[in-house]
């Protein structure tokens, strides 16, 4: 009825819907190992399903696989209740034991077709398999649509779910059953060994991209389907690659892209944000240096030469120049003579005064209120000067009773007055 390509695409769709939806809960509930256990625990059921029937019957295998999965979940649950084993160890015991039983049973009486359940083989999926997969994934989609709200609240805050009279334990059982069903839908395409990759990786990818759970579910389904399709096409082109690894690697590649390029949580975005911060801090330090150089002079001259500044910053002029140019761009400084002589503008004067005030206020605070040693405060203040603002700044000034000098005897400038003074001075 279905061609090879159609089978591949339909299987990807079913697998993507089931694993994408269920996987979202698996990831936010930190149940990854539970998913892995469930997928390995169904294997002896699959083998038994082949073993007990002469002809391959997808519904019978489905039933056996579900039973084995549920048995595994119950066993690890009772291990936790009756021993002092925690969840990870009790799941681990069940995972390996069930899987070993499956492999052992299979070697006793090897049945053809079992290996495609182990690593996934899209070519081995028959039309009746496909119908079964479609039916089960429809069941999963309906169940999740219906129980969306209770699942969501119970995943976030079980205590509050209880407050809303949701039957948390019943919901957990239903969820375990749906998880087993998702494994069964996907095992022929991906194989039981790698099904958990489909439960975790696409949802983890989605988790890096959004802060809304509903969006995460949709993205997760999208990535699952996409990974399924890429993997199926890949293994379709190159018959040597089993479908399971091809799909899992595709999912991992998508994850890799999100890991690198996610707008909020990706490493590239984090790196760029960090770099921007570092540059900002450097610029602000240069700004302050101009202020401090001027402050140290007795004649009150405001212009500073490039070599003076480089020496003060203990860096080469070529390092300092780009910072000067970007400060000029935002109108904080102006150049008096090409690239050699610079001066703070009115705005620059004010911003520099703010930074210096922050620095000196913080030093004073550390020494007076937190009993720091005088020689310990500078480095800390170097950091704080860039972040101190708003309510905390006001509170700090109030607590120190609006001081005018720092512990080293340097004046603590008042940025508002700085620009006024400057304006008056300019008029003179």
């Amino acid at each position, binding site marked *: 009825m279905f061609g090879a390509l159609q089978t591949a695409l339909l299987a990807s769709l079913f697998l993507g819907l089931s694993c994408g939806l269920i996987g979202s809960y698996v990831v*936010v509930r*930190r149940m990854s190992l539970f998913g892995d256990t469930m997928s390995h625990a169904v294997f002896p059921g699959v083998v038994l399903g082949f073993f007990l029937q002469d002809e391959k019957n997808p519904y019978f295998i489905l039933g056996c696989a579900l039973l084995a999965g549920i048995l595994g979940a119950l066993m690890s649950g009772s291990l936790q209740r009756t021993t002092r084993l925690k969840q990870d160890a009790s799941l681990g015991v069940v995972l390996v034991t069930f899987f070993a039983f499956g492999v052992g049973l299979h070697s006793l009486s090897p049945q053809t077709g079992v290996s495609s359940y182990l690593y996934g083989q899209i070519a081995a999926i028959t039309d009746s398999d496909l119908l079964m997969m479609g039916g089960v994934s429809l069941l999963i989609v309906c169940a999740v649509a*219906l*129980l969306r*709200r*209770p699942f969501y*609240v119970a*995943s*976030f*805050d*079980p*205590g*509050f779910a*209880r*407050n*809303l*009279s*949701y039957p948390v334990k019943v919901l957990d059982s239903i969820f375990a059953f749906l998880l087993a069903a998702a494994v069964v839908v996907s095992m022929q395409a991906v194989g039981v060994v790698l099904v958990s990759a489909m439960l975790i990786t696409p949802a983890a990818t989605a*988790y890096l991209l*959004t*802060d*809304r*759970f509903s*969006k*995460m579910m949709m993205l997760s389904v999208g990535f699952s389907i996409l990974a399924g399709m890429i993997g199926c096409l890949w293994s379709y082109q190159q018959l040597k690659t089993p479908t399971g690894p091809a799909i899992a690697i595709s999912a991992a590649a998508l994850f890799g892209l999100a890991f690198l390029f996610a707008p909020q949580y990706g490493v590239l975005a984090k790196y760029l944000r960090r770099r921007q911060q570092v540059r900002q801090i450097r610029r602000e330090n240069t700004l302050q240096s101009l202020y401090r150089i001027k402050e140290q002079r007795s004649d009150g001259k405001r212009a500073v030469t490039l070599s003076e500044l480089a020496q003060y910053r203990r860096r080469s002029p070529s390092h300092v120049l780009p910072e000067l140019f970007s400060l000029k761009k935002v109108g904080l400084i102006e150049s008096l003579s090409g690239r050699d002589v610079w001066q703070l503008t009115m705005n620059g004067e004010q911003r520099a005064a703010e930074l210096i005030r922050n620095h000196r206020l913080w030093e004073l605070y550390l020494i007076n209120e937190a009993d720091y040693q005088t020689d310990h405060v500078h480095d800390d203040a170097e950091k704080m000067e860039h972040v101190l603002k708003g309510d905390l700044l006001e509170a700090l000034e109030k607590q120190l009773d609006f001081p005018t000098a720092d512990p080293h005897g340097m004046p603590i400038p008042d940025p508002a007055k700085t620009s006024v003074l400057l304006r008056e001075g300019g008029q003179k």
Partner: protein
Amino acid sequence: MKTEVHALEVHDLTVTYHKKPVLYGIDLAVPTGNLVGVVGPNGAGKSTLIKSIMGVVPMASGWAEAFGQPVNDVLGRIGYVPQRESVDWDFPVTVMDVAMMGTFGRLGPFRRAGASERARAEEALERVGMLPFAKRQIGSLSGGQQQRVFLARALAQDSDLYFMDEPFAGVDAATESAIIELLKELREQGKTVLVVHHDLQSARDYFDMLILLNMRVVAFGKTEDVFTTELLQKTYGGRLTILAEMAEQAAKVPLEKIHKDHS
């Protein structure tokens, strides 16, 4: 014969953890419209008291009623603010999403939230000053802000009886005074609020009534009546260590043996 219906009534409540008793024969009758503090030393079972009344932790024996009915039947009239540590703050939900959960009680599990629910959630966020943060993911908030969000969810529930588990833990001074103002407002509206609190100093100012708890109810009554050196010493003084010790010993004795000794 009951002359008045209490907001909360607890009778002979016992809770065990790994067979060890954590709470022992608790009796309480909290009159409606009070701000009640639950205080006691670490490990006294303060949080467990609330959790067991809510049914989050099972009771070994006893019962709890709210407004004269089993708690289970009137959960819709009860609001619960769990400890802040009880949820994963990296969960993909926004401040608004959490406040919206407060409206789920009336909506039931299936009905869609509409404009009126949204308005109720927004109003609750406004009351705790968190509306400007509505779109933020909850993990990016400070501890005090997170607690305010939890409180907004409880306000959106519009309950008659509230249980709050350490709402002042790890919050800044401004949040603490904002929360206490809000709790007083709730009391003015005739609501009853039970608050687990660990700071004895402020407990005296904050609450109308106090439950002094240490495995047992050492004292329960109006703050001015029970905030006495003698009772506080009894609560914090560790005189109940023998009870805890014996309870632990007893937990190790197999059940049959106890029955045999009794017969």
